[in-house]
């Protein structure tokens, strides 16, 4: 029985220039219909969840009444959840919404800040300013939610190393923030950036930015527990760890992914069919070989790597035997380390994870 659930809210008030995720512009009537449909779906579930994550899109783009209905529907599943995260954007978060979230057991907010530089915010078409960020953090805190994560992006057009370091310093030293996710910008073909033909920043700068993030965040007491995630005071993301450990999770709502009983599924982003209830999810039955590789692909993102005992229990074969050649090759290059208990990346291996994984591929 899955203990984690991901729910996808596909609406955004505005589409950011770098985004090609499954989302569309907010529309009052569509949101209402969508909400009715997803509540029907939630009603079919009776799991007792350990972690729940509402992502998007922009969950905070839902109007207050719909947000409350949604949380109400989820609440029987989330009574005892250790971690219940909702993604929020600064531009549409209000004190009322924060209070509603808090009253329905939401105990963690993932706030999409991306950058604090006004000039860069304009380029990526984010409609908030630095002072709005401060207000939002206070608002969440005052509503009683104290586990706050922020997203920061590097490698943006015209972003300098200095700008990036400023953002990191600010976030790392902010007393209300205890988790930071950093992402390097990928120019997706179907994003506005992709259509505009914007070039990614140089690999040198990208690497400098990544390395300087590790250094700055560590110096502020952050633990680098996953390739692009940092936590303070033990506040790792419990939900995301389920993905990285390649455990089952339920996916709900069009645009979501899920993994249950060796079936990996995607609910395609076809809003009208979804609302009508005619949408079929796309399923992929994973072979053991696929699962083992994907387990490695996800597991090596964690600093602690893959637990050999867990792997053996799950797949009935020792990781070190299954991938003997790939592991040896990567150890020789200084990308991996193998101990009695686990297999994990060196700092260099983290940076070159694609190269590490290519030799594992079936």
């Amino acid at each position, binding site marked *: 029985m899955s203990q984690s659930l*991901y729910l*996808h809210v596909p609406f955004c008030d505005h589409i950011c220039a770098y985004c090609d*995720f499954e989302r569309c512009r907010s529309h009052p009537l569509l949101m209402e219909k969508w909400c009715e449909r997803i509540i029907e779906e939630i009603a079919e579930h009776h799991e007792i969840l350990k972690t729940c*994550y509402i*992502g998007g899109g922009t969950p905070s783009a839902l109007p207050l009444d719909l947000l409350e209905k949604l949380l109400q529907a989820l609440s029987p599943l989330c009574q005892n959840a250790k971690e219940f995260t909702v993604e929020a954007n600064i531009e549409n978060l209000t004190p009322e919404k924060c209070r509603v979230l808090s009253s329905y057991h939401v105990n963690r907010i993932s706030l999409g800040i991306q950058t604090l530089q006004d000039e860069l915010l304009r380029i990526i078409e984010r409609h908030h300013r630095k002072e709005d960020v401060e207000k939002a953090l206070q608002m969440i805190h005052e509503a009683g939610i104290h586990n706050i994560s922020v997203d920061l992006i590097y490698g943006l057009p015209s972003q300098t190393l200095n700008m990036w370091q400023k953002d990191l310093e600010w976030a790392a030293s902010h007393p209300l923030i205890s988790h930071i*996710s950093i*992402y*390097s910008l*990928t120019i997706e073909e179907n994003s506005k950036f992709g259509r505009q033909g914007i070039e*990614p920043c140089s*690999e*040198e700068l*990208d*690497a400098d930015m*990544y390395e300087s993030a590790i250094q700055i965040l560590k110096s502020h007491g952050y633990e680098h527990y996953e*390739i*692009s995630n940092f936590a303070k005071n033990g506040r790792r993301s419990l939900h995301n760890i389920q*993905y990285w450990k390649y455990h089952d*999770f339920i*996916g709900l709502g069009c645009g*979501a*992914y*899920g*993994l249950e009983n060796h079936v*990996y599924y*995607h609910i395609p982003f076809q809003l009208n069919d979804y609302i009508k209830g005619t949408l079929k999810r796309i399923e992929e039955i994973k072979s053991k070989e696929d699962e083992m590789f*994907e387990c490695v*692909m*996800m597991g090596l*993102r964690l600093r602690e790597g893959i637990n050999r005992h867990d792997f053996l229990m799950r797949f009935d074969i020792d990781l070190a035997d299954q991938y003997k050649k790939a592991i040896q090759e990567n150890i020789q*290059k200084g990308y991996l380390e193998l101990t009695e208990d686990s297999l994990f990346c060196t700092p260099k291996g983290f*940076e*070159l*994870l*694609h*190269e590490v*994984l*290519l030799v594992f*591929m079936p």
Partner: protein
Amino acid sequence: MEQKYIRNFSIIAHIDHGKSTLADRILELTDTVSNREMKDQLLDTMDLERERGITIKLNAVALNYKADDGNTYTFHLIDTPGHVDFTYEVSRSLAACEGAVLVVDAAQGIEAQTLANVYLALDNDLEILPVINKIDLPSAQPEVVIEEIENVIGLDAHDAPLISAKSGLNVKEVLEQIVKKVPAPKGDVNHRLQALVFDSMYDAYRGVIAFVCVKEGRIRVGDKIRFMATGAEYEVLEVGIRTPKEVKKEELVCGEVGWISASIKTVKDVRVGDTITHADMPAIEPLAGYRELNSMVYCGLYPVESNRYNDLRDALEKLQLNDASLQFEAETSQALGFGFRCGFLGLLHMDVIQERIEREFNIDIIATAPSVVYHVNLTDKTQIKVDNPSMLPDPQVIESIEEPFVKASIMCPKEFIGPIMELAQSKRGTYQDMQYIDDNRVTIIYQLPLAEIVYDFFDKLKSCSRGYASFDYELSGYQVSKLAKMDILLNGEVIDALSCIVHKDFAYNRGKNLCEKLRKLIPRQQFEIPIQAALNSKIIARTNISALRKNVLAKCYGGDITRKKKLLEKQKEGKKRMKQVGSVEVPQEAFMAILSVDDE
């Protein structure tokens, strides 16, 4: 069919001036092809030809036309390839005709290639009928073009039909002129057989089919025939014509154009330009004009996956069945493994063959940069021919190197004379002549090394004339040049497939630019890779590909594993398209890099 009612003709035109469209209209007007069967541009049968809008292989169609004089005529329309690489083949198909329809675009006027083909037609004593096409274009200037034809070619063009092949306007007038102006074939059915081979194709069931024009005598099923140049003898099994469907006949008589099948196993026996005669009663001499074809351009072709070597050989053999001008022999490269050295008539021919191998035979290939054939004079007073730069002997034993030169005719509007002459000079050209075609356009003649044309001359010409210049060349002979071999070293190893022969005055710049180009083309790897260029073993340029530092760490969102995995799969696929050369993975494009290196 009485000989006086036969008309054999070709259509000659510059690319895009409407040759194929006119051919289509003629087929329609003579009810040769019903509308239902009519695909656009029927004569071009290969996909590749259609896509590129060019005709590579020739084809001949017989059609019946009831003329205004009340008689029914048989037309043999012989199609010609429209590119400089196939000049000889064009000349042979023209030799099968008595007339040629010269199609000139009413907006573009005469182009260098049109002119080249017109001269071929004049060499073959053809009656040339100028036709002005695309007169329905707003930019059409038929009077100007007529005057140009009269000035430049010296043809009377005052009654040239003004047509639109697209809409069919005045196309009938073209047919009437063919009847009135093109002479019927000469020749005597009672003379000894002389049939000109102007094309051939391979048929899996019947062997090689020869396309012929019977110049003298007759050829019947059951005849024993001899190919006069190759000496091969066969018994004729079938003869016929194409309408364009194949129609079998008992015989072909003088004046007729058709096909012959005789269980011919190899296309090498059926050379374009050869004469077929009877084995037991041969003609005294063959028809004039036969020439053996020599490859002008060579390159190495290697399978990306070495286990497909045999497939590549099969593909080349199959292509050669239909294309005697394709030559190949096995060669081995330290960098690329086992492959083939292939000879082509020219660059287009090379492109077409490469593309067909990839497309029709599904083999991923790596092509090395094309090379011309160098004549290398050694100190022991012997001469060797080198078509692969890595095979050039040690400099100590070389006395001199000769390279092929061409006479290049460039036609352009006069405002581009400056840039074009500058370009030709920078490509080691020697000015020979310039003539005004009319008030606005000129023909410029240069002697140029063929190697420079293979390099990037054509692209440069197009860009410096904003596409207005047209260009044609013919081989003019060999001359000694200051040439040397430039080697490229990756990670300290000489990569034989990247060696090239360069003019010493250009070596430094080309070496530097080639290193730079390779730096951009070869993806970063997990270690630093020095790239060096060496001239006679002396390093003249170097640069580094710095080591890979970091992969992009994209967001792994909402448990979306697919996105990440697809990225990895794409990367793995990309690696497949690369060749492991020593310790370095090199993408295919790198082997052609020399061609896109700028001299500036």
